[in-house]
């Protein structure tokens, strides 16, 4: 028996209620254990795509399948457990009074209680190196620590795929590296939405370019970043002085 891909999106199209169409038939497949970057200029539809992955937005046409399970009303609880979205602002993600309660929220909503729940919370915090901060209120953590706790909150439900929205935004270089170490250490499928191209190259062997509501390119990150014509066409630019080929 073959393992179904973590994520399979077929012909996904979506228009907002105001008529603005954001997605025009997106096709993509992410195998289990892959780390993939989703690149694209502002307004390309990246966030819209992400909100389809766990059924917050319902597809106008096409389908989304997570580990063989179609995203739809029927399996919503299961889908939301399998797709762990880490939103950009950790203050939005961390809504409970303490780190522990926040990490416990997802598993508790799935019905876990008592010692089992405590063990899950401990393990999730340990995986991001934040076990010592369990009883802190999120407000008293540094931004980088909050971001890592936000990752723990979704790891706690043992997701099939981790979806990160701009994981490196607002992080200082040390926090950025710490988060990269955490992400590399996880044995989970990762889809990383980012403008931070060096970060994508560092962490994701494969990249997708979403532009004007369709997947415009899909290939090894290094090749995509080195393709000047492609990059220009989709308003992607490398930071000054950064040469993808020169990074080991």
């Amino acid at each position: 028996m073959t393992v179904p891909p973590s994520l399979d999106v077929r012909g996904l199209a979506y228009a907002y209620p105001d008529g603005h169409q954001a997605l025009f038939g997106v096709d993509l497949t992410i195998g289990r254990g892959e780390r993939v970057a989703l690149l694209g200029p502002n307004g390309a539809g990246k966030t819209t795509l992400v909100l389809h992955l766990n059924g917050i937005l319902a597809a106008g046409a096409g389908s989304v399948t997570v580990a063989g399970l179609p995203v739809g009303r029927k399996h919503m609880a299961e889908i939301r457990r399998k797709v762990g979205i880490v939103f950009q602002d950790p203050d939005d993600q961390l809504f409970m009074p303490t780190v522990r309660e926040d990490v416990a929220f997802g598993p508790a909503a799935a019905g876990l209680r008592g010692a089992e729940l405590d063990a899950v919370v401990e393990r999730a915090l340990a995986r991001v190196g934040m076990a010592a901060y369990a009883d802190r209120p999120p407000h008293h953590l540094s931004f980088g620590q909050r971001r890592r706790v936000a990752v723990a909150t979704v790891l706690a439900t043992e997701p099939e795929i981790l979806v990160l929205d701009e994981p490196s935004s607002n992080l200082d270089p040390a926090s950025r590296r710490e988060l990269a170490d955490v992400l590399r250490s996880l044995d989970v499928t990762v889809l990383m939405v980012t403008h931070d191209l060096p970060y994508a190259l560092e962490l994701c062997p494969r990249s997708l370019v979403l532009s004007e509501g369709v997947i415009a390119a899909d290939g090894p990150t290094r090749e995509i970043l080195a393709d000047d014509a492609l990059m220009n066409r989709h308003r992607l630019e490398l930071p000054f002085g950064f040469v993808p080929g020169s990074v080991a």
Partner: protein
Amino acid sequence: MGAGHAHHLYRRGDSPVHGLPPHTKLAAVLGFVLVVVTTPREAVWAFACYAALLAAVAALARVPAGFLLSRLAIEIPFVAFAVLMPFVVPGEQTTVLGVSLSVPGLWGAWNILAKGTLGVAASVLLAATTELRSLVLGLQRLGLPSPLVQIASFMIRYGDVITDEMRRMSVARRSRGFEASGVRHWGVLAKSAGALFIRSYERGERVHLAMISRGYTGTMPVLDAATTTRTTWARALALPLAALPIRLLALLG
């Protein structure tokens, strides 16, 4: 940058009072306040006994008198009215230090002052020995409707975030040369308040999105499953139970 919600009303400690489950303490304070407010105001000695009971609890909780008294100051705006009563309430007059005062007014003032102070003191003791977060959990276990519990939890979580946002907006205003110095500037302040409201509202929407992404279906999971024994309840309710016979005696007397 302390650990936990070190609210200025809370005083860290590990006394027997700190250790009681929050919902039992809430019930005890409510019970005590009910006993106090239903005591006839003429039984002055009874109020002295109640005060002694609270002093005993404070000693047990190792809350210093100074800490307690300074926090009683919150009561002042409310009792200001009581001070006026002896001058304005009509009725039998008496003369104290050459000033003519109304007797029913004096009793009314005493009533408000004594009962108010005892109630506030009991609440201050509760707040000093119970963390804000635990109070909300206590209310939840006492059966407060879930939406109210959720609103209170979010207030605790986002109070600081919104205060920070407000501070940043104020810094941004002043950085561009704005100083609020009179009525003419109220318009700017009102617009800032409106902007803050919209920002908070939008944050609310984003938080809601994050919540449903993690399986929120309308109720918060209750995470503390600690059971409360009869002994714990008995310990917590010792305060209202000790106050009750005093009230009964006062009613008879």
